[in-house]
C-alpha cells in the first residue's frame, strides 16, 4: 500500500476523522478563530483588538490557547483548519516558514497604519513586543548586566533561568563578555562552558513564564530571568532592560485557510496596527504594540516600563532566528545532554 493511502486510512479511522470536512461547509465568515498564548495576553487581545474588530465587521472573535507549535502542525496536517490566526514567537515563525505551515500575507490587502519594519513580515504581523530580561528581588544587590547576574560571589543568592537554549545560551555568552553586536553566530562551546561554571548557583531552570515571579516572591531565588510582562510593575521585584532579549509575538495565517477566512484575518490585522488599540491592550499587560506612535500615546511616567520605548529598545538585542532554524536540532540535543548533568 502506498504510504499516502495508508495515512489517509489511518486518519479516517483515527481520532482526526470527525474534524474532516467541517470548515469547508461554511461560506460566510461569522467567526475568526485565533490561537494565542492565553492568560492576560488573551484578555489584552479581546479588549484591544477583538472589540473594535467585531464592532466594525460583525465577525466574532473566538480565542483558543495555548499556542503550542505542535498544534499548528496538527492544524495544517488536518487539511481543514478552523483556526485562521496563530500566534508565533520569532523563533517559531522562522520554523513555521521553513516547514511551510503559514500563508504568505498580501500586505497590499491590509489597510495597515505605520508600524516598525520588522513587524511587517511576509508571513506574519508582529503585534506584541516583549522582552526576556533580568529581574531580582528588590532587597538583593542590583546587577547591571548578565556578568553580574551570574556572579554569585559578588551578588549572593540563587538564580533561575529558562530551561530553553534559545534564551539561556545568549545570556551565558553575554555573561562571559561577548558584546551584543558579536553575539551571532553563537559560540556554543563558550556558552556551555559558562553554563557549566554557573550551574551550581542555578536552582531552577524554569519551564513556564509564571514561575520566575513566583520564585522571586517566595524568596526561592533572588535573581531570575523573566518575561518582562510578568515582572514589570510587580511590587518587590526590580528589573532592567539592559542586555535583554527583545522578542516579537507574531500572528500568522494557518496554511490552508479559506480565502474568506484570510480576508477576515486581514481586517483583523488592521486593528493590530492601530496605536489607540495598542494602548488599550498594553493597559492589561505591559507589552508594547508595533506602532512607532505607541510611545506618544502612553503616559510619560510609564514609558520606562515598555520594551520598545527608544531608551529601552536600543540596549536590547534580537535573536538571529535564521541561525536558530539551521541549528535548532543539534543545539536541542546538546541541551538535553546538558540537562542530564545539572
Amino acid at each position, binding site marked *: 500500500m502506498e504510504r499516502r493511502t495508508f495515512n489517509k486510512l489511518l486518519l479516517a479511522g483515527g*481520532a482526526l476523522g470527525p474534524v474532516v470536512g467541517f470548515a469547508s461547509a461554511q461560506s460566510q465568515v461569522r467567526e475568526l478563530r485565533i490561537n494565542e498564548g492565553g492568560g492576560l495576553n488573551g484578555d489584552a487581545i479581546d479588549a484591544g483588538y477583538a472589540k473594535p474588530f467585531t464592532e466594525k465587521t460583525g465577525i466574532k472573535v473566538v480565542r483558543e490557547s495555548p499556542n503550542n*507549535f505542535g498544534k499548528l502542525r496538527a492544524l495544517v496536517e488536518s487539511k481543514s483548519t478552523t483556526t485562521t490566526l496563530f500566534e508565533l514567537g520569532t523563533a517559531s515563525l522562522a520554523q513555521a516558514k521553513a516547514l511551510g505551515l503559514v500563508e504568505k500575507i498580501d500586505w497590499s490587502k491590509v489597510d495597515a497604519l505605520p508600524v516598525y519594519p520588522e513587524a511587517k513580515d511576509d508571513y506574519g504581523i508582529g503585534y506584541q513586543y516583549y522582552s526576556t530580561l533580568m529581574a531580582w528581588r528588590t532587597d538583593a544587590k542590583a546587577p547591571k548586566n548578565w556578568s553580574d547576574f551570574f556572579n554569585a560571589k559578588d551578588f549572593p543568592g540563587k538564580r533561575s533561568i529558562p530551561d530553553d537554549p534559545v534564551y539561556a545560551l545568549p545570556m551565558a555568552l553575554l555573561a562571559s563578555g561577548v558584546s551584543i553586536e558579536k553575539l551571532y553566530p553563537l559560540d556554543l562551546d563558550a556558552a556551555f562552558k559558562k553554563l557549566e561554571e554557573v550551574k551550581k548557583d542555578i536552582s531552577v531552570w524554569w519551564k513556564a513564564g509564571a514561575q520566575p515571579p513566583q520564585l522571586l516572591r517566595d524568596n526561592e531565588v533572588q535573581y531570575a530571568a523573566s518575561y518582562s510582562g510578568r515582572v514589570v510593575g510587580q511590587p518587590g521585584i526590580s528589573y532592567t532592560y539592559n542586555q535583554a532579549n527583545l522578542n516579537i509575538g507574531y500572528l500568522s495565517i494557518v496554511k490552508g485557510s479559506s480565502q474568506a477566512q484570510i480576508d477576515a484575518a486581514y481586517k483583523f490585522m488592521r486593528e493590530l496596527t492601530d496605536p489607540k488599540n495598542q494602548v488599550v491592550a498594553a493597559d492589561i499587560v505591559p507589552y508594547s504594540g508595533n506602532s512607532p506612535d505607541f510611545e506618544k500615546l502612553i503616559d510619560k511616567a510609564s514609558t520606562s516600563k515598555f520594551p520598545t520605548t527608544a531608551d529601552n529598545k536600543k540596549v536590547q538585542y534580537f535573536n538571529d532566528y535564521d541561525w536558530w532554524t539551521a541549528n535548532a536540532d543539534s543545539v536541542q*540535543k546538546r541541551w538535553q545532554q546538558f540537562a542530564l548533568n545539572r
Partner: protein
Amino acid sequence: MDRGASTLGPRAAGTQPRSRGWKAALPFVGPLLVLVVLGFNGPILLIVNYSFSAAGTYSFVNYQELAATPVFLRVIGNTFRITVLTTFVVAVLGYILAYWITSLSERTRNIVLALVVVTFWVSVLVRTYAWIVVLGNAGLVNRTLLWAGAIDAPIAFLYNDLGVIIGMANIQMPLLILPLYAAMIKVDQRHLQAAASLGASERTIFWRVFFPQTIPALASSVMLVVILCLGFYVTPAILGGGRVPMVANMLDTYINSIPRWELASAVSIVLLLFTLALFMIYRRLDKWASGEEA
C-alpha cells in the same frame, strides 16, 4: 487465556467462569470496544506509523537517530529510576497506611478513607504547587526548622530528585491505598485466628498468612503506579526545577516546540516496548507466585 481480572482481588475459591456467550455481551461491550479501538488503539497505530516515516517514505532513520543519540536512552533510563524510587516509597508507605486503616473502628476508618479520597478532588497542578509552600526554601518546614535552630541554612527539598519523588508519591498514593485496602479487608479473619490458635506469633501471622494474601493486590497496584509514573509530566516539570529530566518532558519539547513528531514517536514506541517488557515480567512473576500458592 486471560485471567487478568483475578489479580484485582483475592483469588477466592468458587468463582466459576461463566460462559454466557460473547454474542449476548456484544451490545453492552460493543460501544466501549469501538471507543477503545478508535480512540486509543487507532492513535497508537498512528504513532507507530509516524515513527517509521521520514520525508514521505518509510524508513528506520528515526530509530537510527535515537540509537545514535545516547541522551534519549539516558532520559528513559532516568525516568525508570525515578519511577522505581517513587513506586517503592508509595508501596511501603501506602501498604502501612492501608494496613493501619483496616485496624481502625468502622467510623474512624470511613473518616480516614474520606481523607485519602479527598485528595482526588484537588487538581494535580494545585497539589504540586502546594509543595512549594510547604517544602520551599521559605516554606513552612524550612522556616520552622530555622526558627527552632535545628538547621543553619534551608534544606533543599525541592528542585531535585527528592522533590520530584515527594510530589509524585503524594499524587500516586491513593491509587495504591484504595485497591490494597479493598483486598486487605477481604482477608478472611478466620485464617489469622487459626494461625494464632496454632501458636504463631503476631509477626509470623502477618508475614506468613496475611501478607501473602495481599500480594496480588499489591502487585497490580504497584504496576498501576509504575505505568502512571512513567508518563508523569507536570510534577517533574515544576518540582524538578529542570534538573530531573523525564521522558514526558523531553517528548513535550519534541512534539510542541521543535516539532519533530517522527522522532518523538520513535522515543514513545521505545518507551512503550520497555513498559510492555516490564509488564510481561510482572505477568511471569504473578503466574509464578499464584502457581506456588495453589
